[in-house]
């Protein structure tokens, strides 16, 4: 981080050229006049990447692999939203063990992405370290534990996705290759160990000191009648919204703000911010968590709804614990299914056949950072005519700014250095992925 502090007349400015420990490149600007916060801008300067333009004219089958390139941290989310949207376009449903294996792949990404943020990016904020490297000097065993847990997520992604980063084994209708039951069974001992580490993680992060900052959020997440949501469900909010993915455009809109290369997604008409991600999922789906994980959440100090974004690190750790549990459950069921079919190799075909047709398809899945919306218009040859991709960080950008508007005034009496620390921590609560949002941070505080 490069700090440049200058005083020009009555204006006091703090510039941080690059905000550390967020994914991507961006900046933040705070203006303080006579001790009053007068401007907050989350500036995304990573250039636009025009993926939607790149997809036009491409085959439907290319969408999962091209969109996976949008992010090296959450490629599975892009693949899942892409294949579900295409399957919605062509009127097909992937269910049974193929559906379960997709959920297992998503478990791998949740474990890997959440663990990276918990241990390497967010925990140093709470423990007073500038980075995970500094934290590792005092807490080597803890950091090694985080690396081990992240590795588990990577192992799942490698087996199901063909490789850990930018996986290539997902296709419209299913997979290119299915894992054997033996390959899945071989992961069980490591997954059981990962579950224990995930439990230790929950019990570790709950000991952190959290600022008092409860907000009345509009949480938006998927909700499914039978499971904690990953790939499927209705888009619901705690303020009465209940829509399908096809209705997303009717209720949300992207608006351009001058200070950001990423569009802000807001509630249509009101232009109000809303909150997506682990806290929204948790608040709207607590009842779908297993009883022992619900109990662990309560022992960690959470209610059935968590309204303090600084406690999002606990919620993420709960979701990692759940993802380990769910992965073990899916593997167990896959084994049983295999035995019943008396086929020790592949209980199902890797994909279901279909014919492309001209139509428009929609899907929303739960990326680690929240809702990821895809829409595709496809012609009868399967060529993509138009598409729209709205990642979770675009949806959370205005929410982050809103949090800063409310949080920063509590700390205006602090030194610029401490104010900066708290403001950056407030941003990292959302695990923002700027690289996704530009499909974003340097800090600038202007005091006068």
């Amino acid at each position, binding site marked *: 981080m490069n700090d440049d502090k200058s005083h020009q007349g009555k204006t006091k400015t703090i510039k941080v050229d690059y905000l550390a420990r967020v994914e991507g490149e961006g900046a933040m600007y705070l203006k303080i006049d006579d001790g009053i916060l007068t401007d907050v801008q989350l500036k995304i300067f990573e250039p636009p*990447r025009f993926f939607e333009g790149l997809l036009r004219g491409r085959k439907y089958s290319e969408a999962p692999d091209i969109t996976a390139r949008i992010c090296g*941290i959450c490629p599975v989310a892009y693949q899942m939203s892409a294949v579900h949207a295409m399957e919605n376009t062509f009127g097909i449903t992937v269910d049974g063990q193929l559906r379960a294996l997709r959920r297992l792949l998503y478990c791998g990404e949740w474990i890997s992405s959440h663990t*990276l943020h918990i241990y390497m990016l967010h925990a140093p904020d709470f423990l007073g370290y500038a980075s995970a490297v500094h934290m590792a000097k005092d807490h080597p065993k803890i950091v090694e534990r985080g*690396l081990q847990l992240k590795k588990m997520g990577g192992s799942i992604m490698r087996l199901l996705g063909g*490789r850990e980063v930018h996986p290539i084994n997902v296709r419209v209708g299913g997979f290119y290759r299915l894992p054997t039951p033996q390959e899945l069974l071989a992961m069980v001992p490591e997954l059981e160990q990962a579950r224990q580490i995930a439990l230790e993680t929950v019990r570790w992060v709950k000991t952190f000191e959290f600022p008092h900052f409860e907000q009345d959020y509009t949480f938006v997440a998927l909700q499914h009648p039978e499971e904690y949501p990953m790939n499927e469900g209705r888009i619901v909010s705690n303020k009465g919204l209940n829509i399908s993915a096809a209705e997303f455009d009717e209720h949300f809109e992207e608006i351009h703000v001058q200070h950001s290369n990423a569009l802000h997604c807001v509630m249509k008409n009101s232009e109000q911010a809303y909150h997506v991600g682990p806290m929204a999922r948790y608040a709207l789906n607590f009842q779908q968590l297993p009883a022992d994980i619900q109990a662990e959440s309560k022992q960690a100090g959470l209610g059935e709804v968590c309204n303090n974004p600084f406690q999002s690190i606990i919620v993420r750790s709960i979701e990692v614990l759940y993802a380990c549990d769910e992965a073990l459950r899916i593997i167990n069921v896959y084994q049983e299914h295999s035995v019943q079919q008396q086929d020790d190799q592949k209980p199902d075909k890797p994909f279901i056949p279909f014919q492309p047709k001209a139509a428009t398809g929609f899907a929303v899945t739960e990326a680690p950072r929240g809702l990821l919306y895809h829409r595709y218009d496809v012609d009868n040859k399967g060529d993509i005519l138009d598409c729209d991709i709205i990642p979770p960080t675009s949806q959370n950008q205005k929410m982050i700014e809103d949090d800063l508007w409310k949080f920063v005034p509590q700390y205006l009496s602090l030194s610029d250095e401490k104010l900066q620390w708290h403001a950056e921590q407030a941003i990292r609560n959302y695990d923002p992925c700027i*690289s996704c949002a530009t499909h974003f941070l340097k800090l600038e505080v202007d005091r006068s």
Partner: protein
Amino acid sequence: MKADALVNRTLSRTLIIGIGNRYRGDDAMGCLLADEISKAVSDKQKFNEQLTNTIDIIEHDGEPAALIDCWQGYTTAILIDAVSSGAAAGTIHHIDLQAQALPDQFRSYSTHAFGIAEAVELARVLNKLPPRILFYGIEGESFTANTELSGTLKRAATLLLQQILYIVNAEKKYA
């Protein structure tokens, strides 16, 4: 060989890691050079069987946890990556990572918060660096979305290939 293929590897002495993204212009350099080194060490006329048994070459995306994991058990690791430090395009950089950290301006052309420099420093703190770890970088010219190296990078990569093969040959003496 892809990194994934090393999961069940046996102990080997030298690991060459080509880091990059084949779809981001000059960022592909590490991957392409790994290909060329693989071909060269497979050439039995130039390298004997003993050597090919003591060297592994992988392509890697630079994901830190996996990176730290993949060089465990090796006595030497050589990291090859395109860099964007502000030097003239095509400039070849060499850094002994046992002696010094990867400077900020030599970080991989990546926007991710936890990258190669962090992986090396974390491994240093956790005593997970191999005894010898070298970084070779070439200053990139263009990191836009395409699959072609710039002419400047192609020329520099040819020179770096010779340097790395020279090191690999020297390693043979200690194999």
